[in-house]
């Protein structure tokens, strides 16, 4: 009898708190989005599963001494997001950007998604029930960078208690890019603009590609060292890829290493999806602001492209590729291509959109550096 009482007391049923139940449902919801809707499944699947695991009562998987508490050290120390960034660097071809460097300005413009959202988050404080500090606002704003590891890195430094919501919002909106962006792109462009065809990209030599990560790193070191961990690891991955003498490291960085870290990172992020940190009005604010951030970023990328066409009317760019400046590689470049082909099925914008797309990755890492340097 004693045993049975002890046993009942050890079941989940007798210990479930309503918040845990809700968060497990949230976790299963993320799994649904990941598997059925294919919303960034590589990350949202482990995040969702981590959310489920960490909200199982009694088991304490995310508490001190539990598996997820150990894995979370990889985020706290910055190791996981930086290794992911190295892997992303090893998967990135800067060729299209180097062939047409002015597309970097589109990647710059799209970062208005970040800074505009920061202002918006502070403005939301005027609403009752929502109370973001400056650090919180900066961490939320980085969602507008449309870059998962950057968001996690910045959030873990500025507002670790919001990490779960921020990561979920970042990856969800990255998955929603094909829904969020097209209406904005169509609204801000004329049919004529969408029909613009761009000149074929020039050949970029291997030497230029090898030199680029070094140049980027030097510039970062000189101007914005707070962005150096992110950009540095990104450049390391890209150099490993392009230098051509360490193929086996390149293969490992692009595959096994990034896969292992992805599983661990996702589970760790999921361990931050606890009821007391997630079931708050602020989370709704974060989700709303994330959508705003993506829309702002898309719009400013497109508008920047239009502005550039006004300034230099000879060598016009199709403003649709401005939307790819938010990063979300390669989803937003594909969206630009697809919207372009709605107007002219023979207009291939994909390669041209990869320029602003990878520029957006650099842009959001730079913006992250600004936030880390200026927000205390």
């Amino acid at each position: 009898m004693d045993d049975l009482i002890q046993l009942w007391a050890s079941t989940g049923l007798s210990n479930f708190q309503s918040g845990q139940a809700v968060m497990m449902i949230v976790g299963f919801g993320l799994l649904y989005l990941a598997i059925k809707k294919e919303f960034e499944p590589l990350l949202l699947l482990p995040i969702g599963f981590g959310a489920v695991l960490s909200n199982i009562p009694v088991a304490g998987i995310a508490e001190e001494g539990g598996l997820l508490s150990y894995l979370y050290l990889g985020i706290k120390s910055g190791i996981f997001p930086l290794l992911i960034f190295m892997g992303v660097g090893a998967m990135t071809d800067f060729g299209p950007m180097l062939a047409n460097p002015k597309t970097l300005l589109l990647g710059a413009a799209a970062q208005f998604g970040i800074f505009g959202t920061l202002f918006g988050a502070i403005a939301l404080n005027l609403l009752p029930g929502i109370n973001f500090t400056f650090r919180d606002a900066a961490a939320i704003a980085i969602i507008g960078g449309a870059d998962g590891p950057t968001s996690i890195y910045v959030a873990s430094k500025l507002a670790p208690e919001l990490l779960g919501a921020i990561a979920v919002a970042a990856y969800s909106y990255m998955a929603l890019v094909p829904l969020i962006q097209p209406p904005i792109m169509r609204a801000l462009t004329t049919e004529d603009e969408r029909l613009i065809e761009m000149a074929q990209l020039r050949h970029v030599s291997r030497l230029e590609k090898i030199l680029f990560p070094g140049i980027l790193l030097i510039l970062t070191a000189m101007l914005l060292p707070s962005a150096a961990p992110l950009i540095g690891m990104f450049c390391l991955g890209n150099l490993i890829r392009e230098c051509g003498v360490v193929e086996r490291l390149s293969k490992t960085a692009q595959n096994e290493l990034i896969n292992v870290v992805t599983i661990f990172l996702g589970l760790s992020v999921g361990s931050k999806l606890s009821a007391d940190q997630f079931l708050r009005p602020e989370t709704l604010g974060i989700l709303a602001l994330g959508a705003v951030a993506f829309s702002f970023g898309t719009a400013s990328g497109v508008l920047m492209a239009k502005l550039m066409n006004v300034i230099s009317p000879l060598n016009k760019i199709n403003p649709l590729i401005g939307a790819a400046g938010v990063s979300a590689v390669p989803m937003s470049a594909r969206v630009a291509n697809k919207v372009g082909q709605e107007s002219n099925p023979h207009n291939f914008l994909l390669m041209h959109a990869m320029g602003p797309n990878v520029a957006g990755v650099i842009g959001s890492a730079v913006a992250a550096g600004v936030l880390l340097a200026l927000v205390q």
Partner: protein
Amino acid sequence: METSPAELLLPSLKLMITGMGIVFLFLALLVWIIGLTARLVQSVNPQPNQPRRTGLAVEPDEAELVAVIAAALQRQRRP
């Protein structure tokens, strides 16, 4: 020292302007240096001796691609 919500608006506006400024400055500088490098490289190696794909990096790896296709075919072939 509590700060009222409204008091944070001005600093966040300032941060927005500074931040966008730095991002633009940084990337514009990069545009300039990339152009410079390209000219430098081309003056050293006038003929691109080794034509490589300038294409997109979406496809991670050719070997992987082959593997993926093969796996897909294999799966389709299954009864």
